[in-house]
Structure formats: C-alpha cells, structure tokens
C-alpha cells in the first residue's frame, strides 16, 4: 500500500491529539474513516469541512468519499449542535404510546423542527427510531440521559432549564 504522508492537524487544538492517536491505532488505513469521524465528532461535537479535509488527507481517502460517508450516517453532524440535545424516540413502541405528541410539543414550544437547532443555539432536537428501551416508552434522551415513560409536559419541564441564563442543565 502506498505510504500516505500524514498531514499536519488543522489547528494546534489539543483535541486533535485524540484523533491522531485513534487514526494511528488503525494504521491510518482508509477503512478507518468512520472510526476517525467518531473520534472527531467526540472531540469537537461535529464534523466541519476542515476536519473532513484532514481525515481524507490523513487516510488517503477522496474528499467526495469522506463527504459521502459523513452524510450517509445520521449520527454524524456537519453543523455545530446546540448546547443541549433532546432525542425523542419514535420507534414502534414509542410511536404507539405517545412519542409523536412529545415531539410536536417540543417543536411548538421551542419553535424548532426535528433535526434542527434552536435559533439561539440552546437545543438540538433529534428523533430516533428506537433506542432499545421500549419498556420505558415513550422515551426521550436528554443530554445522553435516557428518560421514560414521559409525558409532553414532563419533557417540556425538564427542557426549561436549557433556556435559562446562564448555562442551564436539563435536570
């Protein structure tokens, strides 16, 4: 396999160290692209063009392929996420038990659509198709914390601190 010279990290940010370590563990092979994206997103919260360019160069992957992979998988985000995230489950059990009502309540209350971030950057609203805790349906995930069963009112109440100044936390 031709040797690909490793390009310099896009910035002096120390978090790049985590990324380069992860890539090196995979021998900087092209098949480490998704692993690399996980590492970047974990470190920086999202994948920006400079990061994709870096990953592509470091792993010897074409730019369009990096973009194609990043946009294929719903877990990867190209825009910076909000300060908080709320994932509403719309899997089968949650669909039957009221997930859609939770989603529309949050959408209406905070004027944000599923898949988007509020204008003030407070909250990213996401949907999932089953997060594997169907016995808690309807379930939501607030900043990584699984909660359920929830009513729309409970979710709105728990989200309220996200919109309080400064640095609210949904708990």
């Amino acid at each position, binding site marked *: 396999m031709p040797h690909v010279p490793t390009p310099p990290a896009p910035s002096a940010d120390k978090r790049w160290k985590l990324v380069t370590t992860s890539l090196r563990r995979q021998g900087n092979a092209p098949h480490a692209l998704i692993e690399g994206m996980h590492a970047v997103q974990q470190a920086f919260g999202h994948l920006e063009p400079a990061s994709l360019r870096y990953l592509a160069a470091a792993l010897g992957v074409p730019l*369009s392929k990096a*973009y194609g992979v990043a946009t294929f998988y719903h877990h990867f985000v190209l825009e910076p996420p909000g300060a908080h995230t709320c994932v509403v489950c719309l899997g089968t059990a949650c669909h039957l038990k009221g997930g859609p009502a939770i989603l529309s309540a949050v959408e209406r209350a905070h004027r944000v659509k599923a898949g988007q971030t509020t204008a003030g950057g407070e909250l990213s609203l996401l949907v999932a198709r089953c997060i594997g805790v169907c016995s808690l349906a309807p379930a939501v995930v607030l900043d990584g914390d699984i909660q359920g069963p929830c009513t729309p009112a409970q979710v709105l109440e728990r989200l309220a601190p996200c919109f309080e100044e400064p640095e609210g936390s949904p708990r």
Partner: protein
Amino acid sequence: MSVCTLFVDGREVSAGAGETLLEVLRENGIDVPTLCNLEGLSAVGACRMCLVAVKGQGRLMPACTTRVWDHMEVTTHDERLDRYRRGVLELLFAERNHVCSVCVASGHCELQSLAAQLGMDHVRFDYLHPPLAVDASHPRFAIDHNRCILCTRCVRVCDEIEGAHTWDVAGRGVKAWVVTDLAEPWGESSTCTSCGKCVQVCPTGSLFVKGHAVGEMEKRTAFLPYLARRRKGTP
C-alpha cells in the same frame, strides 16, 4: 476457460464460466434494458432494469451482476418483467423533473428512449420533483441535479477510469445526490481534471457540456471499454 450452456428464453446459448449474464445476453444479441450498467465500468445492480427470472431462484436477478452457471434457465422478457421495468421507469420519472421538451439531451437520453421502447407513457404516482440546483461553476461542464437518476456512472468512471474520484454520492435515500469533493462548486474542485468522462457517460441530460441548446447534447461512450482494457494493462 470452461464453457457452460444456458437456456435463455428457450434458446440454447453457450458462455464462458465467469462471464456475467448481461455479457452473455449481449454477445448473443438478446436485448435486456439497462441504465446503471455501462461496459467498461464495474456493475452495481442499482437501476433494476436488467432483472431477469432464473429458474430455481426465488428472486429476480440483475443480469449485470450475476455470473452465469451451467444449465442456467433464464427468462428475459415476459408480461411481469416488462411491467416491472415500466414501473421502475415510472418511479424515476416521478422522482425528479424529467421534462424532455426543455432538456439539452432530449433525443439522446437513455431514460427517454427506454421509456419509449418499453411503452411507459404516463406516470400514476405523485410527482416528487424537489427543486434542485444546477451547478454551472465549471468552465466547460454543468450538472442539473433535476435530471439525475443516481445511476452513479459518473462516480464510477471518475474513480475507476480517470482515477480522480471527484464525484461521489452524498446523503441517503431519496435525499441522495451526487457531489464533487466536499459538495463544493464543481468549478472549484481541487481534484477534477476536466477530462469530461463523467459528462460522456451520463445517460441523461444531467451532466452536459455548456453551450448546448435543447436536444443538442449527444453523448459518446465508445471509448470506455477500450480505456478499461488499457487501464488493466491488457494489450
């Protein structure tokens, strides 16, 4: 190479083991419609136009990716297969805007001619027709995403023959689209060599050479099998 015998639509034909069914059909002058396939490029089995029925197989099989075996019994045309092919074409016409009367490739478009050939003359499904962009930033070429059928011929020719891999598919499902580099304007691509192969292999009016009026954009693909052989290093 060992030889196998096939029965295609009741007719006996022989083939080299390892050949694809489509190759064998073509060698024997048996017509099966194709869209995503192009001789000289890898086969992907995406458009589903070449589906044929093979005896003993529960599912229809794409001729372009299926390797032949001895005593294979194949049906290439019957009422059901032709209905399915029309149905798939109908879906393509419903998906994006294919108004031929204003298209540069009209009269030279594979989608249009297949529809005529198979008698697909109206669309019963909702027109989805999302308003998509035209990227005319390249000095010589342009892409009109409204005409793209996502056959990925451009992606494959650019990767497999030109070696640039400027194109790839981004997004997924019905929101998929072809992009250059990081979905940047084609004219600003750092990898595009402006060779124009993608334009030549595009079956529709999606990729075209600028400056053509309606119906003027003819494509040329004869170079491909030759180039593919040259790339493999075979004389």
